[in-house]
């Protein structure tokens, strides 16, 4: 048998072919599913990761610098929030009234100024190295936290830079590939009957199939392959015929009162879908919101599009989770790959700036109404020690009861900790 460097058989980790770990449940999972433990004593069992691709300016979002010189503080003013002393950008008015539900982490700092590397770092919590692809949060969480077998465990709206990496494609996301649009039915591949096939016709076909699929009758007792395929056949039939996953995805059926605060934009609708999926029991949902790479006309694009969408989407998500009693059991993490240069450039833009950035964390036991850490007076770097993406990841995992120091093995046998250099930011949990 092949063994890892420390003696574990590699076959235990052989990759299974599947997209969307819930549906993509491999054979071995079935054997394990029964005794898979729920996440220990942690409060959170679901997670929503909101990815602000391109890297939002920290100064123009959650780390305003009103006292800095004009070329740094930019065009926006801070506003008060419902937590005394905590101030954020004026174009986030809805979020300002929910500040008691989330914490802001300031002074997060790293050194990777390229999109690709920064993105990988912030989506995995491990600084990228060329020889290894780290699994994204969703892959780890869907591996570690047990979920509903009728639902996918890791859904990306519409897509995600997170990969299953060395954990194997079985933990890869189910990508919706599109964002829902207001009033239009929404679905993902294969789970709803399409091409005009009715339930009746589907059942008839299934009946024919049952009569014809007899070549290996009796072989299931001696072949795990055949046995597994038989189980999947039953499950697939139920899944396609039943409405659970289909209903969860179809945001068009949401009550108007619930849907309205999310707005009609792609991001808002995606947040609404995230809310529905978490409500149905999907463990990990990530929403990607790109466009934050504001090298030119930073203020115009922020004010006219990015900030209002962010404001509506995230605030409606937090309010929705709270209203459904899910905020305690769902951690929400909002971040991009880096901050942006404090100094405004000659094109009224801001460039890449990994030395200082901010993130927002809410729910799942995270104490709201705090602003942890700080950047220096000009937003150039952390004021004190600062925080690392690794610490943020460790904290995110901690909320879900996942020990970030747990070791996995890569396909080639190398032992790797989930987050290599992480440590918990305790004050976040009050």
């Amino acid at each position: 048998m092949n063994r890892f460097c420390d003696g574990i058989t590699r076959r235990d980790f052989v990759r299974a072919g599947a997209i969307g770990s819930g549906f993509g449940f491999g054979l071995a999972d079935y054997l394990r599913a029964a005794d898979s433990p729920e996440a220990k004593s942690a409060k959170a069992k679901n997670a929503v990761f909101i990815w602000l691709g391109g890297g939002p300016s920290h100064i123009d979002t959650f780390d305003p610098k009103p006292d800095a010189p004009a070329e740094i503080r930019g065009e926006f003013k801070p506003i008060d929030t419902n937590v005394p002393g905590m101030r954020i950008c004026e174009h986030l008015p809805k979020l300002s009234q929910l500040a008691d539900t989330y914490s802001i982490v300031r002074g997060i700092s790293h050194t990777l100024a390229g999109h690709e590397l920064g993105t990988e770092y912030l989506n995995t919590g491990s600084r990228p190295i060329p020889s290894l692809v780290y699994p994204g949060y969703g892959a780890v969480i869907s591996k570690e936290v047990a979920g509903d077998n009728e639902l996918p465990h890791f859904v990306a709206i519409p897509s995600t830079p997170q990969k299953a990496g060395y954990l194997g494609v079985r933990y890869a996301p189910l990508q919706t590939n599109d964002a829902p649009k207001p009033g239009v039915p929404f679905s993902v591949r294969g789970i709803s009957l399409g091409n005009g096939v009715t339930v009746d016709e589907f059942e008839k076909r299934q009946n024919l199939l049952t009569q014809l699929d007899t070549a290996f009758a009796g072989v299931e007792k001696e072949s795990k392959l055949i046995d597994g395929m038989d189980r999947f056949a039953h499950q697939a039939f139920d899944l396609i015929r039943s409405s659970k996953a289909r209903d969860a995805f179809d945001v068009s059926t949401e009550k108007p009162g619930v849907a309205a605060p999310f707005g009609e934009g792609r991001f808002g609708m995606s947040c609404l879908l995230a809310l529905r999926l978490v409500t149905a029991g999907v463990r990990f949902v990530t929403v990607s919101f790109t466009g934050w790479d504001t090298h030119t006309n930073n203020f115009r694009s922020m004010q006219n599009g990015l900030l209002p969408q962010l404001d509506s989407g995230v605030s409606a998500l937090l309010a929705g989770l709270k209203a459904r009693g899910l905020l305690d059991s769902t951690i929400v993490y909002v971040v991009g790959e880096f901050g942006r240069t404090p100094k405004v450039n000659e094109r009224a833009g801001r460039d890449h700036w990994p030395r200082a950035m901010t993130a927002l964390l809410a729910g799942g036991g995270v104490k709201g109404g705090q602003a942890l850490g700080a950047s220096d007076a000009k937003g150039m770097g952390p004021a004190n020690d600062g925080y690392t993406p690794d610490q943020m990841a460790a904290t995110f995992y901690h909320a879900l009861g996942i020990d970030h120091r747990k070791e996995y093995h890569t396909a080639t046998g190398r032992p790797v900790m989930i987050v290599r250099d992480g440590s918990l930011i305790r004050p976040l949990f009050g």
Partner: protein
Amino acid sequence: MISPTRLTAFAVIVLAIPTAVSAADVAAPAHERFKGEATESPSFQRHVLPLLGRLGCNGRACHGSFQGQGGFRLSLFGYDFASDHAALLDRFNLKTATDSLMLLKPTLQEAHKGGKRMATGEWEYNLLLRWAKAGAKGAGEKDAAFATLEVEPKEISFTKPGETAKLRAIATWADGSREDVTPLCRFRTNDDSVATIDDNGIVHATGRGDTAVVVFYDNGIATVPVLMPLSDRLGSNYPAVPTPTKIDELVVAKLRKLGIVPSELSTDAEFLRRVSLDLTGTLPATDEVRSFLTDTTPNKRAKKIDELLARPAYAAWWATKISDFTGNTERNGPLGGEQGLNRDKAGQWYDWVYRRVKENEPYDKLVAGMALAIGRRPEQSYADYCDEMSSYFRKDNPADFAARPTMPHFWTRRTLGKTEEQALAFAHAFLGVSLQCAQCHKHPYDQWTKQDFDQFTAFFSGVRYGAGNRTETQAMKKGTGLEGLDEDSGNYKRKFAELLADGKVLPFKELHVPQNQKPRPGTKPGVRVGSRVITPKLLGGEEVVNASYTDPRQPVMDWMRQADNPYFARAFVNRVWANHFGRGLIAPPDDLNLANPASNPELLDYLARGFVASGFDMKWLHRTITNSRTYQLSWRANDTNRHDERNLSRAVLRRLPAEIVFDAVVLATASDDERKRLDADPAALRVIGRSSGFAGGRSNDTYAVTLFGKPQRATNCDCERSDEPALLQTVYLRNDPEVLKLLDRPEGWLKQLAKSKQTDSDELIRQAYLRVLSRLPDDRELQVSHKHLSSAKDTQSGLRDLLWALLNTKEFIVNR
């Protein structure tokens, strides 16, 4: 004498000095010599370090951890003699040896996190105490090197669970001295459902079947096959079994020992489907099935094999397989200004391999074209080189990349930037060996030490993809709009690709391969790595004075081509075997290591020797394997082989590979015209072809092939390809819009029928069966199908249901 046929060829290397075991010249085992008040002093390398390994001190969870444990650190799994000796000295009190931490802690006289490892006064304790009392000397320059490990008995045959057998391990050193090292060895079983082994080398029978137990001492590894027959069909009770080929003889020789009787021969329909899928990744066409079934020529199976090997689909599928393990993916193309070409480069890589597989270029030659690839020819100027490279990327009439003698993209990948990464990828691709562990420490289950890794890595030192001549680079950029642009900017990358497409000549990076100069007088030949000079050494072979070669990689290639190379031919033979049987003779197929012997070593030897003797003829290999009765056995089990998935007594059911699944859906539902078109150029038109190295799809097949476990080619592991079933795969075939659309596509069979006047429903049902399952329906199936068709609202929709149902049978997705 050790019978060489009992050993794998790699074991032969370690056991280079076969010796008869006689009690007279073998030193007694340590547990006897150190039982009481011993007076002799144990040796650091022969006794002390192996003992620590056996006690578990240098394991990863203990003092072998890279941070050490409790302030005491040993090299992981041993073999760093100097640092281990220094660390041990810290744990010994040489004045009052009994007060040493190294004796107090493992006996729990002082608290020890690792628990009790030995008892005071026992031989282990005495051995360490004696060593300390004698001055705790380390490994000396004059100490004879460890040479071989030999274990008796050579094979263990049990008859029922509960039986035991004791192993005896004899080590031999370079000076000829020998010792019974049984109490100093580590032991392992490869399958504890067949046999377990305890710390004293006693093997316990636990169940029927066969496996190997493994013995480790120093960097010696020996395996002993253990078996217990599965039935009473043994000796004269074993039935007469045909063994028309050498493969069959070797397979049945082992089955006889196990009491396993092979299954019957497969049916013609089963054989045709299986061999078509394995050799060409293609479902046989309906006419082909029909004519094969009615063909009465006695050697029609052999003829069919030759016919398949001549088809373009054979080259298309095997170019994909070779692209898998050599790591051809657009994702790993070089970063920087040429990044926009990475998809083209993945295509070029494929084309280059495809051409050679198609022409049946010898495998060693094909590999040499990658392993010794160069960018710029020695006589070629940089400008001419750029001219050549640019010519492959122009849109109009691009030059033929596949005609290039060598294929450098293997080396220019972004994941091969470091010499260590090159060595790891090289060893995985061409040797089937994983060196990953030895990169940092002694390999726990193979012979490789960190020094072996460093010395092997030295062959690749200085091979890198880097900038070309600076002045000419600047000159070429002039006037193109590239000057002044940052090569890492998206703008540059886009522009670079666009200009090339327009036919411009642009500056390319080039693969630098150091041209070795003669070592200066007085210096040691070798490769400078940091401040150290490392002499390149072949894996398990000789040190090489690199200066005598122009290309430092040349000696590795020469070594691989030698008839007795333990890895090169075997790795490919084993991968081909794994494709044809769903499991390698060595499994996993990329894990050639001493502790992981082949299920049938004689068979692997025979095929590897034959492959070399054939001149590395890939078609010889395929032909030899698929013409064997063993390959052509039925999947239907008998009472003796129901649970055999290891000894080749029947065909093992396996899910089709990802690309083949998708293609099979397309082929099964294609009109006759479309089928002809696809068969004519599978490399260009099918998923088993050229697009296999692309990230993201050529069309919308990406989802499906990812779902079914197509390898990403991102890591050095054959395990990237998965043939495990999963729920979403079933959902896909049942209900994915892509599959539903394929049924009704304009080029599809259903549309063709709608236009034709064919109304004989029995014939249509037969055609559906032939298309999807490559066989004719039996009477019951015909009846059921017929009934469904007559209850459907029209023939077309009835046939659609039938096609759907057949595509969703397990029989379709399984190679049987």
